[in-house]
């Protein structure tokens, strides 16, 4: 792998950039691999990378139906944080955040991880209490969190509506180590680093079946033929139910649309991630200057990566309600992604009832921040045929057993999670 650096850039500039190599190869599939990962999103690519890096398993293919990184990895609002309530989640996400913190150097790819801070506003005593419970849980688990009062929030984000708000700002829960990263770069960076360790990244190769013999996985049928595998990992956010069904699994998942928006480019205006507590809305500013924002699910099953207007109306209204100066700005583009919503809003990284078949999915609207941690834990689970303690609770059986990890307490209603 040609290492990237400022010096190298200078060198290539002299030769008119004519000699930059491919970031990753475009190999044909081999007849079989030790591990086939289905899905070339951030999670699939990270899984392959950590299989190679942490477990020395390099005979690995990532098969992706389209170009890599254009699923949810390529369309999310890029918030990275580990501010969860339950220990099952906060240990996992904290581990992921730790991996983010060194990711640039590890991958030799600038994923623009920017620890700008994530501020969750609250607007009532009961919301403050819920934030406090969560923040205290984080702190007890060694994760940074700060509880800000109204004045502290005002000093930090003066643009909020402090005078005329329908739901006044009471304060906020701040995680300074949270922030954003460049979504595309994450996929590309993992792809390049995995490829450098020998992983085959096979694009435009859709898995159409999962072959089993005697209850054991033997490989995958694809649009480019059968590919044998001793172990198969599913990491196909947005399509988890469909791919799992190829192995006869029926999951506690519904697929829903989540929309996102970006404004025209602006000079720096919002310098952290801010989430509204009185409506579905959150915002940050990208390095290019666009305000990237979103809200809640549209709230109906859908595999279409596009959404509907009622959600748009609510999200935009919430934005102006929270930050009145947004009103005059113009929104440039809206898009949607398909969220595999589990019945408790928490993910699955686990073995399945089919031997040799592993599942990584159900990321709901929060899996971008999990990318390195998810890949790391999934690789561990596949390599050892057993979960790491960070993902031990993220099983399918938890629903049957009554051990849901329901942060919001919303219950088995995916559209409300």
């Amino acid at each position: 792998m040609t290492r990237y650096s400022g010096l190298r850039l200078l060198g290539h500039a002299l030769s008119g950039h004519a000699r930059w190599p491919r970031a990753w190869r475009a190999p044909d599939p081999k007849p079989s691999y030790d591990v086939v990962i289905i899905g070339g999103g951030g999670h699939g690519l990270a899984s392959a990378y950590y299989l190679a890096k942490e477990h020395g398993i390099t005979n690995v293919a990532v098969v992706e139906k389209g170009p890599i990184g254009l699923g949810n990895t390529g369309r999310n609002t890029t918030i990275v944080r580990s501010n969860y309530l339950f220990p099952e989640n906060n240990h996992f996400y904290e581990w992921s955040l730790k991996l983010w913190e060194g990711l640039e150097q590890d991958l030799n790819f600038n994923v623009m991880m920017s620890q700008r801070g994530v501020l969750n506003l609250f607007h009532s005593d009961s919301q403050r209490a819920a934030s406090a419970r969560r923040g205290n849980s984080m702190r007890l688990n060694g994760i940074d969190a700060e509880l800000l009062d109204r004045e502290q929030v005002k000093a930090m984000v003066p643009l909020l509506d402090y005078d005329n708000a329908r739901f006044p700002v009471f304060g906020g829960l701040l995680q300074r180590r949270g922030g954003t990263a460049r979504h595309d770069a994450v996929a590309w960076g993992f792809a390049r680093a995995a490829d450098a360790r020998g992983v085959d990244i096979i694009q435009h190769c859709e898995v159409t079946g999962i072959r089993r013999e005697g209850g054991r996985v033997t490989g995958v049928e694809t649009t480019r033929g059968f590919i044998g595998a001793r172990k198969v990992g599913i990491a196909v956010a947005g399509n988890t139910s469909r791919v799992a069904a190829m192995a006869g699994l029926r999951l506690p998942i519904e697929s829903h649309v989540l929309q996102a928006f970006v404004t025209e480019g602006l000079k720096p205006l919002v310098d952290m991630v801010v989430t509204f507590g009185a409506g579905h809305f959150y915002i940050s500013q990208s390095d290019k200057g666009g305000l990237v924002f979103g809200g809640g699910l549209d709230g109906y099953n859908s595999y279409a990566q596009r959404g509907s207007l009622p959600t748009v109306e609510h999200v935009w209204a919430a934005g102006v309600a929270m930050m009145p100066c947004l009103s005059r700005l113009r929104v440039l583009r809206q898009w949607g992604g398909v969220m595999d919503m589990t019945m408790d809003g928490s993910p699955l990284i686990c073995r399945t009832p089919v031997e040799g078949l592993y599942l990584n999915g159900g990321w709901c609207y929060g899996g971008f921040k999990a990318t390195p941690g998810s890949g790391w834990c999934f690789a561990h689970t596949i390599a050892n045929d057993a979960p790491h303690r960070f993902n031990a609770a993220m099983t399918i059986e938890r629903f049957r057993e009554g051990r849901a990890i329901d942060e919001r307490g919303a219950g088995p209603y995916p559209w409300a999670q």
Partner: protein
Amino acid sequence: MHLIDCPWCGPRDEAEFAYRGDATVTRPAPDAGIDAFYDYVFTRANPRGWHVEWWHHAAGCRQHVKVVRHTMTHAIAATGRATDILEVPAA
């Protein structure tokens, strides 16, 4: 934005409805046991294609409307009352 033909109110905007999920699952008999209830409450076919589902006309007649809708195109093939059995197109 979906236009849902409420069997009582006529075509109404999606904004008036609250989605209430898969209408193909039926509540098991009270003594059916945990597994049956687990299936009913948690597991979903979640098809990419035609889906029979509930849309509660929350801001209208407050009825649960049964809707056959395509989860890729969002086309609606049929709507009906809660007890209606609706035809689901082949593909």
